[in-house]
């Protein structure tokens, strides 16, 4: 006798894409736009699709890796420095070798980023040092390496290949609202979605995050999981270095990717990835990254200086985790 509840339902394991959390973030997005609109109606023009699609992709990209790490109860605060170092290293190659193949440059940046990520990951996996310590060291070490590498110079727009700059200027369609920058996010969003939901390593990320001790007893390849998530995140940070170069037209160790880890982690946490491990999905994270974009544009519309941003991100992290924890306690007590 088979259970009807299971077999009648073909959509059995299709994930609920739009859960309560995602709706919540969408509601927040509209709420912020509405509030700002009441004071400054020109928010609507500022909030052009083009602007939005330019702002959030770089954050969303790295958040896709960061979310995997946070699902396993880890954290990577070195992504901003990794982004800067990888972008700068490839930028220097572009500068010193005019005509260097830009596609090769993208691949190279991802490799460098992945190398740094794997370095973090192998220390965490093999020496069992807490991720916050390892990546905090990475945060300052990779930034320092970028300063040394730049040796007082910076990469500016005229040294960057046009193909790279075009990533954030033009797109595959006639109107240039949807740029290649956005296409990158779509592609990596799909890849990340498939990894998390349809591959063994991806499911293992949830399993390990849900109960690390039991995962060990059950014979899961824990070191492989850790290496994968930090390596993948590193590769995405490296790619983000190139996209940053494209979007802003410069790479400068004193500016590029500063506080980037905070914004990324904000997106992940707000997107519904539990800091207690084991749960979260990519749609929520993408929406949350978009929401941070709305915040950013709202600030400039209202005329608040961008100095406000960091305080707001910090507040969002704290408020989200507080609310999540209260909800969790409430659910547990029922």
């Amino acid at each position, binding site marked *: *006798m*088979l*259970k009807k*509840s*299971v*077999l009648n339902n073909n959509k*059995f*394991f299709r994930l609920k894409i739009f859960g309560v959390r995602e709706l919540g973030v969408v509601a927040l997005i509209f709420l912020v736009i509405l509030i700002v609109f009441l004071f400054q109606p020109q928010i609507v023009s500022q909030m052009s699709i083009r602007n939005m699609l330019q702002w959030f992709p770089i954050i969303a990209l790295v958040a896709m890796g960061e979310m995997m790490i946070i699902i396993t109860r880890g954290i990577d605060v070195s992504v901003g420095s990794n982004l800067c170092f990888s972008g700068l290293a490839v930028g220097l190659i572009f500068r010193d070798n005019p005509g260097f193949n830009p596609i090769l440059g993208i691949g190279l940046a991802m490799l460098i980023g992945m190398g740094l990520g794997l370095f973090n990951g192998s220390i965490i996996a093999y020496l069992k040092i807490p991720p916050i310590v390892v990546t905090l060291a990475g945060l300052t070490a990779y930034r320092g390496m970028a300063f040394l590498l730049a040796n007082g110079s910076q990469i500016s727009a005229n040294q960057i290949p046009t193909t790279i700059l075009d990533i954030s200027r033009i797109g595959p369609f006639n109107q240039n609202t949807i740029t290649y920058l956005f296409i990158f996010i779509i592609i990596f969003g799909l890849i990340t979605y*498939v990894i998390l*939901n*349809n*591959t*063994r390593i*991806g*499911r293992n990320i*949830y*399993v390990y*995050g*849900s*109960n690390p*001790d*039991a*995962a*060990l*007893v*059950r*014979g*899961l390849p824990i070191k492989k999981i850790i290496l994968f998530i930090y390596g993948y995140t590193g590769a995405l940070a490296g790619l983000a270095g190139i996209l940053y170069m494209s979007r802003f037209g410069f790479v400068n160790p004193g500016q590029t990717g500063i506080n980037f880890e905070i914004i990324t982690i904000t997106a992940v946490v707000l997107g519904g990835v*539990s800091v207690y*491990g*084991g*749960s979260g999905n990519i749609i929520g994270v993408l929406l949350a990254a978009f929401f941070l974009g709305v915040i950013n544009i709202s600030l400039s519309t209202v005329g608040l200086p961008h100095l406000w941003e960091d305080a707001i991100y910090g507040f969002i992290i704290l408020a989200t985790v507080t609310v999540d924890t209260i909800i969790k306690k409430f659910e547990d007590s029922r």
Partner: protein
Amino acid sequence: MENTKNPIIQLNKIWMAFNGVYVLKDIDFEIYPGEIHALIGENGAGKSTLAKIIGGIHQPKKGEIFLDGKPVKFTNPQQAIKNKIAVINQEPQVFPDLSIAESVFVNRLPGNRITGLVDWKKISQEASELFSSLNQEFDLRKKVGKLSIADRQMVDIANALSQGARVLLMDEVTASLTSNEVESLFKIIRDLKAKGSGIVFIGHRLEEVCSVADKVTILRDGELVANRIPPDTKMDKIIYFMVGREVKNLFIKTKHKPGKVLLQVNDLCSKDRFQHISFEVREKEIVCLAGLVGSGRTEIAESIYGIQPFDSGTIELEGKKINIRTPQDAIKHEVYYLPEDRQAHGLLMDWSILNNLSLSIIGLLAKLGFISAKRENALADEYISKMKITYRTVSQPVRFLSGGNQQKIVISKCLSTKPKVMILDEPTRGIDVSIKAEVHQMMNDLCESGVGILMISSDLPEVVAMSDRVIVMHEGSITGEFQGTDITPENIMFAAVGQYKEKITC
């Protein structure tokens, strides 16, 4: 059906020790295909350790393991899993964020032949078939975290079964199951047996165990006392094997005349943990909560001490109802609890002897908010000499002390608070004999000074020697209360396995 077949697993002269204390001594043990082998014994007899050695979780100090006649060494659980050896624990090892179906296949998600991607359809189908065969009805999409303990246990069992286990070790898995669930579990076990699996069943409900087993093996204090005896052996003979040790070198407590009632517990209930618990502890009295692991003893202590909430009932101290919500409340009422796991709850392992000793009463040692080193040292000197603690310097981290000396420090910490009631959870577990006697002497002295002691102990000789009264628990309820000459290992064990002696006639 006597052994015409060869054993799947054969253990040869296995020795195992933790922190220098031997918990398994010279064990020979075989698992045959198509046989259910029950393993029984008191708490701490070494049953779980034996299961964990076979499952690759622990590695024995000495001895050999043969799998199908070939010597093997499992250095981790993965290797045992690869050889189709599965261990199911009393505490289910589950993943709260995963769906039931995914949990079952967690370490071997089936992939699509072409793409290599996880085949969710197959998972849902196979999981649904598996649970049907277990006669269980679940919404397989439900998160495991939302299930009851019994259901989690089922998921754990389904996981082991789905791996086609040749050897299945079940360590007290029925503790949280209802009798219907146990029945369907037994049906599954018998099916597996028919298919040629070797099953080791560790349990504490003797009747239940004997009804399903083909052979019974009994461990006592890490030694094999009865090997492969038939399950229809008389119950009192089995109990004799479990508890019938020679009594030697036991501390004999001085009897004190109990005074007024100190702690009174009335009809304490906590869902799924214990029900209708009432007892009292008087001045100068040692009351022992006996019972097997998981019978709810520690849970009661934790509720009295404010670590775990309870649902109904009252706690009175010297006739007055008290409200204890946190350990701080309990200490304020001069009730102190000494936890079982010293390392995890009782001591700060990296702190010095001095700082550990002064921790509980740090407030009393302070002058104007600053801790007075003079008073702190005086306190340490007092207890170190009183307790005969062996040490190099008082600034030595307690990590480097022996288990017995650590325990003395934990007890000193309690004493420094000058409690009225002390709850001691397994006060002498893992302590060598000489220090055990000192701990018993201390308990005796405490008692004499008017303290009421509630002791939780699985060490039957200790229970018999130290207790004025014994309250025996079985699965969250009190099943027996003994005093005076009625305090015998046999009486306690009968009540602890959930039956009264009168009822047993076989």
